[in-house]
């Protein structure tokens, strides 16, 4: 059976890196030390939302979903812009990308000023290699399906739940499509398992796809020619 977990992807060795042990620190310690840059954005999303009300409410879940949608939309958009894909894979990236961007727009509209910002991403070349692209796409879609499944039962509002379910089934279609293109069984299991937020974020962090924004601004006097 093919393993599409993000941890098993091999992107310049970055994904082969175990979650544990970064220079003697655990990944958790690495993040806690503040060395993870904007990777922490993913975790901050929930913290910011929690500040709006007690408990892990719908706002936190929506921002968590938005963060995953950012990840997917940015991935497909970059692949389409770079034009490294061909044929059916290229077409699939265009279609799925347009849908993921629609999800992002919808979440941002609903959340308004409470929406988390888009993190910076570095896909480390997987958008430029058709095989790596498909494998990553399968992993992203499977992860999104499991993430929605993990949070849907916790949503308090039935209208938010209805919206989440409408997106969840679309993500499942994407997962099946990408699996088919990759040559894997699109619907192998009789029951899919949910993933907790902690598990999803751990996996996303382990990819190193989420990066800090490059430091392109400084507070210092110029020495240009004048």
């Amino acid at each position: 059976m093919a393993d599409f977990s993000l941890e098993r992807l091999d992107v310049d060795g970055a994904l082969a890196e175990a979650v544990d042990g970064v220079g003697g620190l655990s990944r958790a310690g690495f993040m806690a030390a503040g060395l993870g840059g904007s990777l922490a954005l993913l975790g901050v999303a929930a913290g910011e939302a929690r500040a709006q009300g007690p408990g892990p409410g719908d706002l936190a879940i929506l921002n968590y979903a938005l963060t995953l949608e950012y990840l997917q939309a940015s991935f497909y958009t970059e692949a389409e812009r770079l034009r490294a894909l061909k044929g059916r894979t290229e077409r699939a990236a265009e279609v799925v990308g347009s849908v993921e961007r629609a999800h992002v727009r919808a979440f941002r509209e609903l959340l308004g000023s409470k929406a988390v910002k888009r993190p910076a991403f570095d896909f480390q070349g997987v958008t430029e290699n058709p095989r790596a692209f498909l494998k990553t796409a399968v992993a992203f879609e499977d992860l999104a399906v499991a993430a929605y499944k993990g949070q849907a039962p916790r949503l308090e509002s039935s209208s938010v739940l209805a919206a989440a379910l409408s997106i969840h089934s679309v993500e499942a279609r994407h997962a099946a499509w990408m699996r088919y293109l990759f040559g894997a069984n699109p619907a192998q299991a009789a029951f899919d398992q949910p993933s907790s937020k902690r598990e999803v974020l751990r996996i996303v962090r382990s990819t190193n796809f989420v990066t800090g924004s490059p430091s392109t601004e400084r507070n210092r006097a110029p020495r240009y020619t004048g």
Partner: protein
Amino acid sequence: MVVAQRRLVVLSLGGGAAVLALLAVLVGPGSEQTSFGRDLPAPPDQALDVGRPKPLSGEAHVSLWTTVRRPVTARSAPTRAASAVANLDRSTPEGTANTLLVLGRREDAGGDVWVRVRLAVLPNGSTGWVPRDAVAGYRSVRTRLVVDLGRLDVTLFRNGRRVLQARIGVGLPQWPTPRGRFYVRNKLERYRSDFYGPLAFGTSARSAVLTDWPDGGFVGIHGTNRPELIPGRVSHGCIRMRNPDIVRLGRLMPVGTPITIS
């Protein structure tokens, strides 16, 4: 044969009657008593409206840029055997990330991806190829800046639409502002310098004359303490703007914006 046909007719009639009976039970007044259970409420309204998916648009106005992830040699062709064009560090003399404008990409025979980038080196207009793994993630902008040395003005476009136009000061004849294609490399602000005004953009353009200028003679776009000299040919090569104009430009123009100076 006739008996068999009769049996088939009887079976067909019997089957049809059973289907009709089932439909009657389902749609009839006693339907809530069937195995389908009671009627259920309609689905709830959805909290968000996922609009119609849209293809990427306006891509003609999108430019990609990146930063140097590790020190690397830019080469004249997408192969390690090609001649060196420039050695690239991770940071600029100003201490910001070393930005590169992305012009294209190509796979070599071994399947490795190379990225063609515009370089902030002399001679102006230089480009080179770097391995994909030497640069960070791609970022995008939808802006471009056009500097007209004849009309002495700058025009900023976003998505192809003009969003700002302002008069400028440019290089004196002995220190000309270089012509060509460049990009915004960094942004400096909150410093104390009346001469440079409140904000300065660094560009990839370099003075071909003032090569011994501190930090390499990069051409900037900045404010001024002599607004009365604008428009004019007054600088050492930099593009000077009145302070309100450079502040507006600072709000509208992101790092990575391509620049054309003509």
